[in-house]
């Protein structure tokens, strides 16, 4: 019990937004290259809780580059109880690199949610198209990473660990697939991340390091040649759960660790 306390006390996975007017989003990954296109399934979460006025039928998409710097806020209208598949390439500013992060903020937290001292959170579904495939590979959001208050200021919600932790991906990397292990920084501070690639018997095969500013994204590239491999991420993130892109020319599989 005491041993676990050193890993848990004052180290929540995410903190609550400081402003009661905030709305919350995951920090999603966008990719925009000749091979990858990114789509987001927009739905009006507030309209599922109660009827909302026309003036409240919008979302704000905040787009960040690979270094976590905000490059754009885009306000989009959405219909109640409808689905709208957003092609991110239509709203990404010109001249950006090939990948980065984005957040989807709803117009408000509806009153039935606010009365429970809760916040509306977008943890929705990103679809990736690979090599112009008509089929999208979907993956859901998994972390309440970032809050936006009524004055439009942003607050990172990811907690910091006192000690360095290891996240062992319970998925084996196998040839002939190419893997990209995507990790984002949901905290307000800069994070050092180490990615170890190991054989099944634990022999270190490759070691990568990166430093991630707040809201930034890094893709670790691993291409197993002859054997099954394991991936371990070391950092002071409470849970360095990566997004994994597994591709071969004919297809793509995307999933959370």
């Amino acid at each position, binding site marked *: 019990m005491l041993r*676990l306390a050193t*890993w848990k006390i004052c180290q929540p996975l*995410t903190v*609550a*937004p400081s402003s009661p007017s905030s709305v*919350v989003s995951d920090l999603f990954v966008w990719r925009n290259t000749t091979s990858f296109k990114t789509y987001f*399934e927009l*739905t009006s*979460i507030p309209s*599922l*809780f*109660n009827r909302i006025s026309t003036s409240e039928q919008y979302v704000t998409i905040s787009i960040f580059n690979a270094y976590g710097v905000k490059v754009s806020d885009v306000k989009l209208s959405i*219909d*109640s*109880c*409808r*689905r*709208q*598949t957003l092609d991110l390439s239509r709203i990404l500013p010109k001249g950006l690199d090939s990948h980065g992060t984005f957040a989807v903020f709803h117009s408000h*937290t509806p009153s*039935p*949610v606010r009365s*429970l*001292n*809760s*916040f*509306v*959170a977008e*943890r929705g*579904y990103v*679809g990736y198209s*690979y090599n112009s495939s*008509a*089929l*999208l*590979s*979907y*993956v*859901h959001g998994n972390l*309440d990473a970032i809050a936006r208050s009524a004055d439009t200021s942003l607050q990172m919600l990811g907690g910091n660990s006192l000690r360095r*932790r*290891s*996240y*062992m991906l*319970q*998925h*084996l990397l196998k040839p002939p697939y190419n893997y990209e292990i995507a990790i984002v920084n949901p905290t307000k501070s800069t994070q050092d991340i180490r990615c170890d690639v190991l054989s*099944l*018997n634990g022999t270190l095969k490759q070691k990568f390091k990166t430093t991630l500013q707040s809201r930034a994204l890094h893709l670790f590239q691993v291409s197993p040649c002859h054997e099954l491999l394991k991936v371990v991420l070391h950092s002071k993130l*409470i*849970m360095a*759960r990566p997004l994994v892109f*597994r591709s071969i020319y*004919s*297809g*793509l*599989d995307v*999933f*959370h*660790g």
Partner: protein
Amino acid sequence: MSFFPILSAPSCVGRTTLSNFPPNNWEHLSKRPVFVNLTWSSDSLWHSFTFEELPFGMAKSYTLSDIPSNIPEGVLPLLSLSSSPLPERSEVIPSVPRPNQLPSWRASLELFSESASTSYQGELDPFPENASLLSFPPLIQTHPTIKNFLLFLNLEKSPIARNATLQIFRSADTSSRLDEFIIANNSITCVSLDSLNIQSNDLPVLVSKNMSGIPLFLAISDSCTSMSLEHTHPPASFVIHGKRWEAQKYLKIRWSSLLEII
């Protein structure tokens, strides 16, 4: 640890990869080998069969044909890891430990064909028998060359077979039901969604008053060269902090009254 189903779907084979190493370095520190079990329900009993040990640090993939057991056709095969063999028969699903929370101990749950595969990291724990389901899936792909399936995954403690009804509506038009399906407990129920005439801007809503589960959405290209598999979140995931499960209850009550559920 939870249970890890071997999935099944049209034109695909299920493969589940179990790991005997924890997802983090601070919650579960055992380095012992574990037993690999197969569990299924039939004849109003849970049946379990322990068929091998998995050394610490290893992982291994299983399709149904890899397992030396003749289980009845159509049952949901559930793999698990445990420190001792599970009882051969029981009236309540055997208890398997859950050593991890951040994150949960997961397996790779995969569907594959000759030229494509799709997976997610998942686990399956028993749902309460009095639970209901509400889900808003924006995952149906309307391109004419893509086939869509709902794979409804349920597990309960009791092995006694029962059915429930799953209804699907357009959330923007709650007066007309698109269809309804029979779903079964302790099973994976596969439903083709392509005949429902769901449009690209429709947000479907799935409801079951008498059974909960995990709704998985499988999309397969005509040529079977690409696939996508993802599950939806429960409605509690629309909110964080505070009384989020009360928010889920509120949504279920609201949508139950909005939809003319029979």
